[in-house]
């Protein structure tokens, strides 16, 4: 039985309207393709608006010694050399042009005294490298890209969720989704599909991520047969709010430390002196997050289980100008004036280094016609991402994905797909309403986030990961029994039921990859394998669906050519 649906047709379908999706759409449009952009929220609300600190690009406006080689080296070192070297090279080389382009499209960055784009210091970056707009860089970026895309004429399908990719043999040729507003189904036919759906933070209890971050693109790609890689590497940002309870996990930008903020424990000690005496508060995020976690666990935490972060030694006017949204966020939500006293902060699940494996040049996945860029893709960041490298990632690889997707659309015809794929996708979505009784999706989600937080968190070990996996299997059984109340009209419970499926797939990939990697490296810390193991340092873990089941394999990390090795070996 076929259920009614509408059909839309484009050369290129972009799933996600954050920085990567919009940049991909702009590039595909510029190449003459017809482009549709699908997003779960309204246009301009994507998680990119939350990005605060800045865009990393070796423009050398503040530190003339900076260049792409230094940025490349910092990125590889931050990622503990598990990165795809070619992605890191392209990223470092192209980021400055992508920033200049934003400026030419109307973005207004903070300025140096000479009138150039101002750059600030950030963790793991040797030079002052982050182009920024106070602490609302992401908003500036999204608004600039949004206006550019609207002017160029992309079709935006707002509040629409994609639930399945359509395939023709081994290639992707479209997607099935539904309008959140009316609950009606829609089929997108496209010659190429770009995934730009971001990360998976909503599988953890304490997270800086919005409701949209449910691993959709990773799960869609996995279901279509694409490879995922580096799934064990989940970034916990060291500084999220810890109090009051409602804002737990909310991001406190690294720019606070970039502008001179200092971490202290309950005893007033600058504890980073013990964890990274050289870089101190501006060490990489994996190191700082573990340091705060350890301080709290060993009894030196603050009243609400965090560390103090203090910028009040700087003049109040300076703090308000450089960190305006932090100032308001703490004043309004936590009754703390950060120009007068310290903030309380603790680690919060923030970013997924892992994701869909892509080709460095084209951002194409292992499935023909399917591309992935930004948070949903993997490779650039390796075992740990440097702050500021995400916004530049979105622009550099968003553009490359859009370019390659449009080129492919120019040389292929539309695929043909079997109607049964659509029937399956719509039946799965409607099953939630058809059960006479069952559990609320919210209950299953709460339990999943508790499990991921306590068993697949910052510090991991075999026992925890195995019990985590057993629980994920239970949640999968419970998911089969979820019942959604109410109608199909803008029903958030229904949407969560669907998002949960993606979260369960990705959570399993994370836990299984974490169990497999028996060492500690970057953001992956095993208490039972506390050291880095050089043999593991040469391997990425790849996750793929084989005959309906999830399978893991190990792949050698690609070796950089000799000239890049020389750059990496420089002091």
């Amino acid at each position, binding site marked *: 039985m076929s259920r009614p649906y509408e059909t839309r047709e484009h050369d290129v379908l972009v799933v996600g309207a954050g920085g990567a999706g919009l940049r991909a759409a702009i590039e595909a449009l510029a190449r003459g393709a017809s482009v549709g952009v699908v997003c779960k929220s309204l246009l301009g609300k994507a998680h990119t608006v939350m990005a605060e600190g800045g865009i990393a690009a070796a423009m050398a406006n503040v530190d003339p010694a900076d260049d792409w080689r230094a940025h490349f080296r910092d990125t590889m070192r931050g990622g503990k050399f598990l990165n795809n070297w070619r992605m890191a090279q392209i990223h470092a080389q192209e980021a400055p042009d992508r920033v200049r382009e934003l400026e030419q499209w109307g973005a*207004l960055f903070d300025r140096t005294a000479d009138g150039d784009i101002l750059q600030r210091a950030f963790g793991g970056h040797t030079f002052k490298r982050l182009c920024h707009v106070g602490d609302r860089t992401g908003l500036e970026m999204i608004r600039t890209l949004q206006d550019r895309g609207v002017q160029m004429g992309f079709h935006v399908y707002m509040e629409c969720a994609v639930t399945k990719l359509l395939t023709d043999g081994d290639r992707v040729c479209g997607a099935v989704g539904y309008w959140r507003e009316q609950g009606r189904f829609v089929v997108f036919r496209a010659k190429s599909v770009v995934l730009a759906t971001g990360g998976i933070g909503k599988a953890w209890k304490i997270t800086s991520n919005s409701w949209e971050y449910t691993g959709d693109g990773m799960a869609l790609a996995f279901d279509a047969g694409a490879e995922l890689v580096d799934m064990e590497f989940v970034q916990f940002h060291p500084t999220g709010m810890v109090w009051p309870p409602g804002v737990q996990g909310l991001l406190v930008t690294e720019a606070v430390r970039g502008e001179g903020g200092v971490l202290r424990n309950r005893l007033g000690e600058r504890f980073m002196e013990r964890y990274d005496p050289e870089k101190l508060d501006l060490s990489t995020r994996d190191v700082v997050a573990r340091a705060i976690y350890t301080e709290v666990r060993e009894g030196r935490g603050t009243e609400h289980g965090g560390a103090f972060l203090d910028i009040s030694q700087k003049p109040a006017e300076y703090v308000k100008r450089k960190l305006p949204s932090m100032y308001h966020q703490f004043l309004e*939500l936590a009754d703390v004036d950060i120009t007068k006293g310290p903030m309380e902060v603790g680690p919060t699940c923030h970013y997924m280094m892992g994701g869909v494996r892509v080709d460095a040049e084209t951002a194409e996945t292992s499935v023909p016609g399917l591309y992935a860029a930004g948070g949903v893709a993997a490779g650039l960041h390796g075992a740990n991402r440097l702050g500021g490298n995400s916004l530049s990632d979105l622009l550099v690889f968003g553009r490359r994905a859009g370019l390659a997707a449009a080129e492919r659309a120019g040389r292929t015809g539309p695929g043909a797909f079997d109607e049964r794929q659509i029937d399956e996708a719509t039946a799965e979505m409607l099953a939630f309403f058809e059960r006479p009784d069952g559990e609320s999706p919210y209950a299953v989600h709460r339990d999943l986030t508790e499990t991921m937080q306590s068993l697949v968190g910052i510090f991991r070990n075999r026992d925890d990961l195995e019990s985590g996996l057993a629980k994920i299997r239970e949640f999968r059984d419970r998911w089969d029994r979820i019942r959604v109340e109410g109608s199909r009209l803008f029903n958030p419970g229904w949407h969560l039921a669907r998002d949960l499926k993606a979260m369960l797939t990705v959570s399993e990939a994370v836990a299984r990859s974490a169990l497999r990697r028996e060492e500690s490296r970057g953001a992956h810390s095993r208490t039972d394998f506390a050291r880095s193991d050089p043999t593991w340092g040469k391997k990425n873990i790849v996750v793929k669906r084989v005959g309906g089941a999830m399978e893991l394999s190990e792949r050698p990390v690609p070796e950089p050519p000799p000239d890049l090795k020389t750059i990496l070996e420089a002091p």
Partner: protein
Amino acid sequence: MKEAVLRVFRGTADGGELVEYRVPVAPGMVVLDALHHIQGYLAPDLAVRWNCKAGKCGSCSAEVNGRPRLTCKTRMDSLPADRPIVVTPMKAFPVLRDLVTDVSWNYEVNRKIPPFSPRAGTDWKMSQADVDRVQEFRKCIECFLCQNVCHVLRDHGKKREFGGPRFFVRVAALEMHPLDGLSRTKLLKEELGLGYCNITKCCTEVCPEDIHITDNAIIPLKERVIDDFYDPLAKLLRKVFGRKRT
């Protein structure tokens, strides 16, 4: 544990009613936390828009006790404890469901505005002081609370003739961009109906980003429209010396 009583609008464009929910109160709780509690435990189909929960995305706009607010920034302890908290959708836009309204009209207005158009031969140097003025407007998170509260839209429904404060802020950001070379005064006068605004400052009052919409955006734009269309001397001077100022 302390409890709060919320009365939340449930319904569609065809009508609805206020439904009462009891929600446990935690320290520092905001109205959006209460709405999430209702979704999680009492009414899983309660329709609410939200994204960042940090006042940065402008999704969770609604009216709390009749005042247009971001629910993520409205502390429960800032509201009177002796009566129910009434949460209703933005009044100026058609209800889709519960607290979710159809704001698509705003996206249509936005499409009318010509984009940033850099002057030929610019060297892309700008001073912070010049940028500061525009960055105030660029802070806008498009929560549309200013549109919701503006009487031209809210009470008189002039959506065809009027662009609303959000888009005056957007045009101001373009007009005052240090490197922009275009004039949009004709658009302001003829398509966005700037003249309908009688500077009651309601928009400025509700702006969660504290943008001085009336003083810094609307009034200077009104002056530019007057210069361009009603001041013959200025018109003549422009003909002689060229058009654009920043």
